[in-house]
């Protein structure tokens, strides 16, 4: 059996609505500098430092072909190994994990950035739709998500109040997270009376525009134990695609997530996720998604996530706190969000999550999603032991 892969350092920028004061490189370096300082690592050849870098960014958000050109100096790519993954950044971690498990690399730096503020969200997202049958309709991820929300609520009787509870919970949790972009003291009524963006999704059901970066260092077990006093281990990881055309899918289910989770759980030896997982960080660009993805993750039966939020299972102090950091709803950029979830999970497992610490967290779940109505889903299970 191969050595396990450990996460030895994590860093995030504070998420912000507009980081016009820095370019992409300077932004990502804010996070990278921290992980380099923390581990004392330098960029070097095999055996002496970082063996490879996996970056994650999107040309469409950066407005630049080969977006990694903008960060290459800051990630130590000169005369070194670098690759760029173009999905949510949690997949860059998966890629880095493969590099280590393959035995070819010992220490890999992973860095992701996105400045949503510098592009137009609708135009970028519209470009993801099939240009022949969908794009001219003027869809963006919001409109598609809204149709998924309608379908999900219709099919399983999920209510707008239950979705609003997610928004209230996460925005409240954000008060305890120094990296969160914003925290709000809001009520269910505030959510339900906020302006409708695309029914049933309202302003407070959705995430704000956000800029930020995240960096991490992964290492094989023997190295990880030397590099960090509290390494966190990747126990399981997987990802999965499903079909593109939203009309071909049952949007109220999320088969890709079911498959990704099943694989990650089997690697991690998890048979009863709600009982075995202590804290979960789930990417919810819109409030309904936290509920729908919980079902896909098998944290409850299909259609039962509303009951969990009603019962307070996912709040701080509940059986399985979900998004103690405040989630995407409190401001995390697309692309970066999945890695930020892993970073938060690592802090939880190290017991370094400050006021948002979930007591005695030993196993954590981090989730990342890319594309239209969760077309590409990824799950990583992390553990302290």
């Amino acid at each position, binding site marked *: 059996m191969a050595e396990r892969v450990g996460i030895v350092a994590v860093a995030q920028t504070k998420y912000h609505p507009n980081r016009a004061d820095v370019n992409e490189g300077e932004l990502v370096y804010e996070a990278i500098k921290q992980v380099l300082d923390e581990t004392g690592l330098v960029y070097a050849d095999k055996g002496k430092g970082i063996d490879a870098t996996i970056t994650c960014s999107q040309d469409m958000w950066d407005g630049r072909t080969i977006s990694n050109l903008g960060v290459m100096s800051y990630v130590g790519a000169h005369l070194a190994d670098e690759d760029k993954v173009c999905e949510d950044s949690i997949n860059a971690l998966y890629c880095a994990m*493969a590099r280590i498990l393959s035995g070819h690399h010992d220490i890999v730096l992973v860095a992701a950035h996105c400045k949503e503020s510098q592009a137009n969200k609708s135009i970028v997202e519209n470009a993801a739709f099939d240009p022949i049958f969908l794009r001219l309709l003027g869809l963006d991820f919001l409109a598609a998500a809204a149709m998924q929300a309608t379908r999900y609520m219709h099919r399983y009787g999920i209510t707008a109040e239950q979705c609003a509870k997610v928004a209230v919970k996460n925005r409240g949790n954000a008060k305890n997270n120094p990296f969160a972009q914003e925290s709000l003291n809001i009520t269910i009524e505030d959510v339900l009376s906020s302006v409708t963006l695309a029914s049933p999704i309202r302003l407070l059901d959705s995430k704000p525009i956000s800029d930020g970066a995240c960096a991490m260092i992964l290492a094989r077990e023997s190295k990880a134990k030397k590099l960090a006093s509290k390494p966190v281990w990747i126990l399981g990881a997987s990802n999965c695609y499903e079909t*593109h055309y939203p009309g071909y899918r049952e949007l109220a289910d999320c088969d890709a997530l079911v498959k990704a989770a099943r694989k990650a759980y089997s690697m991690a030896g998890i048979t009863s996720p709600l009982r075995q997982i202590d804290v979960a960080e789930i990417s919810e660009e819109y409030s309904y998604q936290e509920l729908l993805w919980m079902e896909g993750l098998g944290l409850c039966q299909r259609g039962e996530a509303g009951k969990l939020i009603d019962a307070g299972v996912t709040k701080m102090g509940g059986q399985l706190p979900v998004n103690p950091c405040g989630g995407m709803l409190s401001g995390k950029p697309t692309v970066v969000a999945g890695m930020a979830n892993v970073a938060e999970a690592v802090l939880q497992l190290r017991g370094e999550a400050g006021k948002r610490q979930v007591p005695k967290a030993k196993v954590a779940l981090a989730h990342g999603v890319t594309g239209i109505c969760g077309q590409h889903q990824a799950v990583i299970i992390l553990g302290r032991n």
Partner: protein
Amino acid sequence: MANRVAIVGIGQTFHKSKRPDVNQAEMANEAVRAALTDAQLGSKDIEAVVSSNMEPFEGVYLPDHWMASEMAACGKSGFKVATGGTSGASAVVEAFHLIASGLASTSLVVGFQKHDTGDTQAGMTACMTPVFGSGATTGAISEFANQALVYMEKSGAKEEHAAMVRLKADRGACRNPYAQLKLGLKGVEEILSSGYLEWPIRILDFCPQTCGACALVLASEEIAGKITRKPVWIADTITVHQEPFRAGSFGDPTGLETYSQDVASTKLYKRNGITNPRKDIDMAEIYEPSTWEEMMHYEHYHFCDENEGWKLIEKGITAIEGEFPVNPSGGVLSTNPIGATPVIRVAEAALQIRGDAGEHQVTRDVKTAVATALGGCNWTTMILLRRSL
């Protein structure tokens, strides 16, 4: 100990300048089907799909999502990578690691580019944002033009040598059923009378724009042993990126620069006991967007000494029947669907090892081959293939 990884399926489209009969997804699907057929596997046998494409060329964000079904990716693991021209090689590298790590036992690599959709040169120009100034964004052709000028002066190569590279490429392309440009050129004079794109790059010195896709099926040793008698083993891979050169991205009039090709090949050869590349490797498929680039790459990959690249072409050493054949497929000069181009390099090198290259099978018995890719600002990825490990 890492799992061994073999290429067990190879498929590509017929490459053309325009493909109105298929959308991008259907085009990729042709290559995927061909690779699965070659591997004698069904779509359900694939566990992971790694794809490569540069989004601003076709203006599709997350094209792997649009094309997921056609790439047999639904219900499978996978992701897309993009590193410029090397994207396809990056996809091979990551798919290789997925199997070597045990995270998957079979994986599909899909590279594609549909050039009749957008404007490739414009897409490349957009690799600099306007914050750096428009003087800096002269596009790829200018880069290669500058580089050619530097190389001519430094090495003593003449335009005739560039023409010989095209002639060699064309001879290969005419024997390769999948190649795009098949000109049937008779001699260098014909090439030397073609017009200039940008001094001193002639139209025939440069690669075409292509619609095409290429797919590979990679498998673990266990699976490969069950399904094929002719596995091609991925012995090693290496990626080396670098900072832009002081005086532009590709040409180096300063003589100060270290080339990523040099660093990558030196490391790769050392790790794999290759002391004399032209002897220890039997053929190469390299990424040469221009004729001049091919001659320079001979030197940077240590196929010959410095300033002697043009002599290899002059002496016919790199011809199909030569001592060390390079790009018998016709290479990038004949076919260039950028996202797929490095995958084609690997595919063609693997076909040579299998002895399945048909009319463009080289004379030399190919046991070891190397495939290279060029991207970003002179970034390199190399993949070393062997008939047996």
